[in-house]
């Protein structure tokens, strides 16, 4: 890690997409060499499913990151959604719409709390959303007395484990969400206001943008997408996954950052996110195939975020003062 990599990073950074793209190619080749069974049909389908699930939350995370924020409460919202659907319906499809409505309201509430803390109180986003994560997780534990139970209605399973044209439904959902987000970010005033707010909040405010509203909308969008991901995950598992609510799900953040969305706000687009999602999904499925448990996956995610941010660093400080 000396001047060589730093120099390369500096050259690659303007291209932006080159680094995650080469990372993806590297992992795909390594997987092919290491585990010949990687390119089986079932396994590729798993990659596509993972990409769909991670992707939906990663789009939300991207919107928050672009506004100079970070959303660590994504995993808690997903867990809460699963628990709400399971406890409210217990497998009864007729009650599904009401349960989904409840989950959406909960998502909006959580997004609003995040936004309120960040915008109104000036709390650093990672502290605010981490605190919300702990609160929601605590609420789930207290509500279910530590043992969540209940079945997921059959109707939801088409969303989680169904296929359209041979491709898992979650990937279609991700594609739709990503397309909408890409258009909104690149082609609308709302998108331009978000980029302006993220790259220079003060200038944005002075030029008449209501930055508070822009940032708040980002957190609410992220929470709503987390609800959607929670529905997908519930439909896939078919039952409540008590573990899900307990894990601080970092996939969305890892995907966005690996893809090249800047943590400092205002830089990056949905293309980056899609690339990061693909890379992370391949990596996770490969890890599963190598027999790595939760521990290996957590370690890889942590290392990937660190490596990605490190490689993206430019300037003299990154050129290796050691």
């Amino acid at each position: 890690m000396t001047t060589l990599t730093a120099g390369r990073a500096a050259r690659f950074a303007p291209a932006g997409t080159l680094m995650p793209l080469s990372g993806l190619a590297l992992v795909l080749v390594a997987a092919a060499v290491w585990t010949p069974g990687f390119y089986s049909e079932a396994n590729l389908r798993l990659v596509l499913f993972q990409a769909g699930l991670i992707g939906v939350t990663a789009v939300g995370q991207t919107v928050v990151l672009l506004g100079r924020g970070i959303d660590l409460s994504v995993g808690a919202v997903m867990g809460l959604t699963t628990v709400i659907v399971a406890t409210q319906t217990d497998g009864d499809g007729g009650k599904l719409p009401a349960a989904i409505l409840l989950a959406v309201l909960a998502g909006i509430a959580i997004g609003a709390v995040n936004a309120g803390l960040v915008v109104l109180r000036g709390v650093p986003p990672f502290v605010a959303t981490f605190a919300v994560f702990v609160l929601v997780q605590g609420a789930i534990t207290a509500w279910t007395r530590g043992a969540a139970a209940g079945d997921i209605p059959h109707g939801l399973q088409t969303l989680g484990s169904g296929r359209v044209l041979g491709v898992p439904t979650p990937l279609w959902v991700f594609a739709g969400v990503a397309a909408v987000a890409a258009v909104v970010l690149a082609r609308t005033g709302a998108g331009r206001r978000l980029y302006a707010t993220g790259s220079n909040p003060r200038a944005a405010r002075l030029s008449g943008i209501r930055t508070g509203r822009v940032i708040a909308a980002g957190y609410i969008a992220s929470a709503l997408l987390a609800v959607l991901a929670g529905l997908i995950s519930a439909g896939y598992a078919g039952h409540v996954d008590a573990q899900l609510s307990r894990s601080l799900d970092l996939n969305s953040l890892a995907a966005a950052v690996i893809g090249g969305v800047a943590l400092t706000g205002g830089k990056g687009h949905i293309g980056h996110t899609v690339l990061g999602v693909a890379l992370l999904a391949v990596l996770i499925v490969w890890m599963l195939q190598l027999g790595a448990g939760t521990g290996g996956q957590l370690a890889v995610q942590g290392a990937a975020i660190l490596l990605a941010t490190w490689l993206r660093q430019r300037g003299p400080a990154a050129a290796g003062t050691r």
Partner: protein
Amino acid sequence: MTAVTAPAGAAPARERLAAALSAAARTGLAAWAIVALLVAVLTVADPGGFWTAANIANVLTATVVLGLVALGQHLVVLTGGIDLSVGSTATLSALLTAMLIDGYPIRTIPTILAMLLLGAAIGVVHGLIVANTRIPAFVVTLSTFYLIQGIAFMISTTPSGQVTRALADVGMRRFGPFPLALAVLAAAVAIVAVLLHRTRFGRHVHAVGGDAAAARSAGVPVNRTLVLVFVIAGTLAAAAGVMLAARATIGSPNAGQGLELSAITVVVVGGASLLGGRASLAGTLGGVALLALVESSFTLLQLPATASDLIRGVVILAAAALFVPRSHRE
């Protein structure tokens, strides 16, 4: 909470009150005031139970692990950084302590020393990355939070190992209302207090947190200070892990979960600015006492244990909303 919606032309009395309140929060007085209030409430709620030696010992025991981690966090926050990995470090240290000792008395001391070294090594890595790159501390330590927790899970996903009687005694023995483990915390507090207020290093920590660029041009060894601060935080987190293992007598891969946020809460409640340069050690200790009181009162008032996470979340959220001042640096 009302200050946000208050009209611009609020009465001067109100402004003076707000100023007094924010001064109280900054000096850590607010934390101790809430502690006093809570003690009063608990005394009224359960007069027979709260002031027993056993319960006081419970409260004080609850301060040890949290206090060790919070002291490290205090230093890191003073420099304007944050260490999200302390919970994972404590977990790894607790798990390894129990697994490496595995019931053999002769291994106790070497294992504890090894754990402290491990914590210091983790701190060196954090410090070097934060000091030499422009990656924010929270990103670095968020990554290692996952990395270290992942390693702990790779070592064991189930509680395992066994500590020796001697170490378990340190975790559990008490003299009247004073647990033996409190001596560990007292020693750590003394060391950190001396470091902060009596040494050049302490002045450097404040200088780096106040304005790193100005400190650098004034000849403060900014990088060395940052590395040292993270080393102390890592070592203290590892020590907290050893205490966790001593108390549980076995090592669990979830032992330190959530400690990082508790530690941040405590420092924030104690009046520290997350922007760096300002934090009160007395306030941080007040925060430790506050959280320890809240946690131990669950058993005292016989509330369901599953609600404790919720209350912790409420306390943390309230602390974030009320104590974190609006940041003007953008």
